[in-house]
């Protein structure tokens, strides 16, 4: 099932995504099943289909794990409250990736 959502980037991450601060997309589960996609599905999609920049390691490490130091907010709440990578995306969710890995 394709789920519509909004993805936002800040803290310098937008530089990896064509300087887009916000994108709307419709996402399916990676395995093509009827299951709603998770954050991991989203991260894989962003890396494979959206990111043009070669510096993938600024966003993910060890495959498709969000790099420590990149904050993820789901509808403005810390993703640590809702299961992190395993969170099941709901229609209309706003997901923000904010890097803290820049100077102060």
């Amino acid at each position: 099932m394709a789920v519509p959502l909004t993805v936002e980037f800040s803290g310098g991450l937008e530089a990896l995504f064509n300087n887009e601060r916000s994108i709307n997309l419709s996402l399916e589960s990676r395995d093509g099943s009827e299951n709603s996609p998770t954050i991991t599905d989203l991260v894989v999609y962003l890396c494979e289909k959206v990111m043009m920049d070669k510096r993938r390691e600024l966003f993910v490490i060890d495959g498709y794990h969000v790099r420590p130091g990149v904050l993820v907010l789901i509808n403005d709440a810390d993703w640590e409250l809702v299961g992190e990578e395993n969170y099941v995306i709901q229609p209309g969710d706003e997901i923000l990736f904010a890097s803290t890995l820049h100077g102060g």
Partner: protein
Amino acid sequence: MSGRSTESIRPLSSATCELCHIRKPSLRRPKTGQKICQPCFFHVFETEIHNTITSANLFFRGERVAIGASGGKDSTVLAHVLKVLNERYDYGVGFVLLSIDEGIKGYRDDSLKTVKRNKDQYAMPLEIVSYKELYDDWSMDDIVAQIGNRNNCTYCGVFRRQALDRGAQKLGIKHVVTGHNADDMAETVLMNLLRGDTARLDRCTEIVTQSTDSPVKRSKPLKYAYEKEIVLYAHYKKLDYFSTECVYSPEAFRGTARALIKNLETVRPSAIIDIIRSGETFTLERKRGTVATKLGTCERCGYISSNRICKACVLLEGLNAGRAAVQVNGSEYEPHEGAALHKRLEHLSF
């Protein structure tokens, strides 16, 4: 225990803020693991900084203090919180924003625009000091054009420290606060430990530092504030800040330490504060017979210096002579030991 009684407790504790027990939580605090809501977060974040300030007697009534403002997240949050606390607790401190214009196109010119907006947002006076006006018309862009991309952070570090001091002196201010956060401090502890730099390890966690060759004291009110919370605070408060890395500084070694800290934080969030606490409790045996450095003034520029000629003037001499000056401070530095030089000078960076 019956199933019913646990059920009646569990939804309360997981669905509401662990402090007010009313609102929905917005974040998990890395320091404590508590799940808390935005208003409670603002309250504890600000109160902890207030406690850091009062327990270290950082300010006195009537003091004028310059906030080293880069337009980045840390100094923006610092300026905002200091304004809030100064009003809430009536510190009676006069804050001024002090920015350095290194002359880096596409980086500092943009971040200075942010600082100029902050000036109005926080109703604080703003002073901008540029490398160009202080250092014989050399901007960082000019310096990099001449010496290339290798040792440029050395120049920037030395120049920036003096520039902050000079800016403060220009304003008649003897105290500069900077936005160094807990992650920065844990990083520095690790770096000094890995390098075996015992002299610096001892001092790097101090909240107030006064270097022998500086008339201005420095302090770090955010030393216990986690980067994650600083970024969330700025985000939830919708503060206006600038987030682009300096175009010239990948800073490889700090990058390694930073990645390590971030990985440790993922496994155990309290690791950052634990490393700072360990750093604070290191006591190292003093060497006997160490002579205190004599303070003098630089023969060239008249600035306070423990050497005949201050570091900035030595670097400038090299630049003006049309070559890269690698030798900074007499025989202590071997020209080919770029790493040693970097190590000696890194603490000067802002």
